[in-house]
Each structure stands twice: as C-alpha cells, then as structure tokens.
C-alpha cells in the first residue's frame, strides 16, 4: 500500500493556500489524506455573510469545489493533471458565524473521471451543505509541479512513500 509523503503534503498545502482565489476567500486547505481532505474558512461578517445573516451560497459552492478537488488530489497518481467538470451543491442549513469545516472524500477514482463528495459543517458539527463534483484526469492537463516549474520554483518532494 502506498502512503502519502508528509513533506509533499506540506508543500501541496502551502501551494493551495497561496492560490489567490482561495486566499482572498480565506479558504484554507488544512489537511490532505489518501482520498480525503479538510478545508476551512473562518466566517467574517463583512465578507462572507448575506444581509439575511447566513453565509453566501457561493461560499458553500467554493468550499465544495475546493474540497472535492483536493480529495481527488490526495489519491491520484503524482503525474495526473485535473480539471473540474461539474459541481452540485445542496444547501442544507445556515449559521450565523464561526468556522466552517469541510470534509472532502473521494467516492471513486477512475482512470479518466473521478467523483468526490464534500460535507460542510459548523464547529458544532451541524451539516450545512453537501455536494459532489466530477473531476477529469487527462494527460495534457498541468500538474502542480508543471505550475511550479513554469514559475521557476522547486518541485514538491515525491508524493508517495513506498511502505
């Protein structure tokens, strides 16, 4: 069985948390496991909330989009490049503030099409949104290392350890 290299995961999290769009939404990838991940956001009243005092639906959608992508990333081969094909989000509840914790899980890792799901919960564990996403693996899509190389930055350490 293969095991994720903790040094690679730290590098991947740093890469994720420097993505401008996630940075600007305050979305942080806090954990990446084999086929799973955790993504969090600390709600800010003047940023993420509707005038009706709940988070914007678009924020739930962004959390589902990110968590499903990183859940697939956590299990896919090192040389795989991805593109999101679709996202489906069911809005199930509201919260007035605090931290949203999103758990991403791989449902199926296919050769070309992967499916992942995500659960968005508040700090008390109340389920606020559930979503799924299909992600395509294609040989011509850039990997994180391709992006780093293009920027002239060092590659990440190997993704998997042989155990």
């Amino acid at each position: 069985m293969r095991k994720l290299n903790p040094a690679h995961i730290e590098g991947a999290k740093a890469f994720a948390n420097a993505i401008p769009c996630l940075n600007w939404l305050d979305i942080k990838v806090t954990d990446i496991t084999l086929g799973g991940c955790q993504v969090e956001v600390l709600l800010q009243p003047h940023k993420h909330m509707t005038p009706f005092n709940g988070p914007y639906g678009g924020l739930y959608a962004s959390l589902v989009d990110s968590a499903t992508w990183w859940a697939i990333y956590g299990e896919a081969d090192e040389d795989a490049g991805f593109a999101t094909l679709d996202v489906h989000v069911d809005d199930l509840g509201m919260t007035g503030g605090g931290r949203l914790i999103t758990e991403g899980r791989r449902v199926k890792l296919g050769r070309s099409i992967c499916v992942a799901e995500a659960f968005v919960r508040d700090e008390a564990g109340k389920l606020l949104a559930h979503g799924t996403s299909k992600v395509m693996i294609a040989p011509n899509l850039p990997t994180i290392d391709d992006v780093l190389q293009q920027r002239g930055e060092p590659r990440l350490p190997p993704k998997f350890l042989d155990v």
Partner: protein
Amino acid sequence: MRELNPEHVKAAIEYCGHAPFSKLISFRLTALEKGGVSRLELDLQDKHMNPEGGPHGGVYAIMVDEAAWWAVYAALDEDAAHTTVDLHVDDLGKAMGGTLYAEARVKKMGRTICLAECDVRDACGKLLVHGTSKLMVVPGLATVAQTMAKLGLSPVPPKFMEV
C-alpha cells in the same frame, strides 16, 4: 399586466453592489428583466484565477448561484422571499481574462420551488458555464425591502407597476 418598475430595479442593483460578498467577489448585477431574467458581470482579475490559468471553479459557481437568485427575485411577488436549495454547475470552458457575462432565466416559478438556469459566457459569446439552481419561496423569510429597511437604507420603490 405587471412590469418591473425600473426604479426598483435600480435600487436592487445598488443594493446588490453594496453587499459585502458582491464587493469581495467584484461581480455586479446589471439587469433584472420581466419574466425572471437577471444579468451579472465580472471583470476577471488575478484574484479570480487558478495557478494553471482560467477562473477558479468557485467563481463560476458564485456567478450561477447569484444570477439564479436574482432571476427568481425578478419574477417573485413583492411580499415573498426565497432562499437557495441547490446548485448544479457544469464547467464547459476556460476564460483567460476579460469580462464574464452571466444570464439567468427562470424555467419554472412554482408556489414553493422555483428552477432557474444560467449561462456564463466570455465577451465573444463562448459558453463557459451552464448551471441550474432550485430556490424555495419561504413564508416569513425577510424580503429584500425588509432587509434594506433593517440596514437603514432608503425605502425601495414598489417592485411592479401595472401597464
């Protein structure tokens, strides 16, 4: 026959422009039209983009979520309020910059559940995203006019006028 009051539409566009999340994402509502149509625009900036190029999937989802909400708003009775139940987004293409244009239309106005669909295109008309969203009319939920009053904004003109 009732028509949307242009003064109300102007106030709604202004209200949307002042909402914290629309400022954060930098999208703008540009039109509400008779029969449940909304138009939204977003000028792509570095903050919206993925490191691999192209807007983050969350940005597409946010545009569909928001445009669908406003499309239903345009067809909803003045004293009714609605909330999003779900969102489905198909990512069909990448824009490398420029302005994104979302157009959402109500497909069905039910007594309780409404369905809206949305296309997002670039300036050349290339289809980048197609999405649908279900929204629920909820008795007792605060209306836009009530929320504006609560925020101390000037009273909104009537939504419809008889012609």
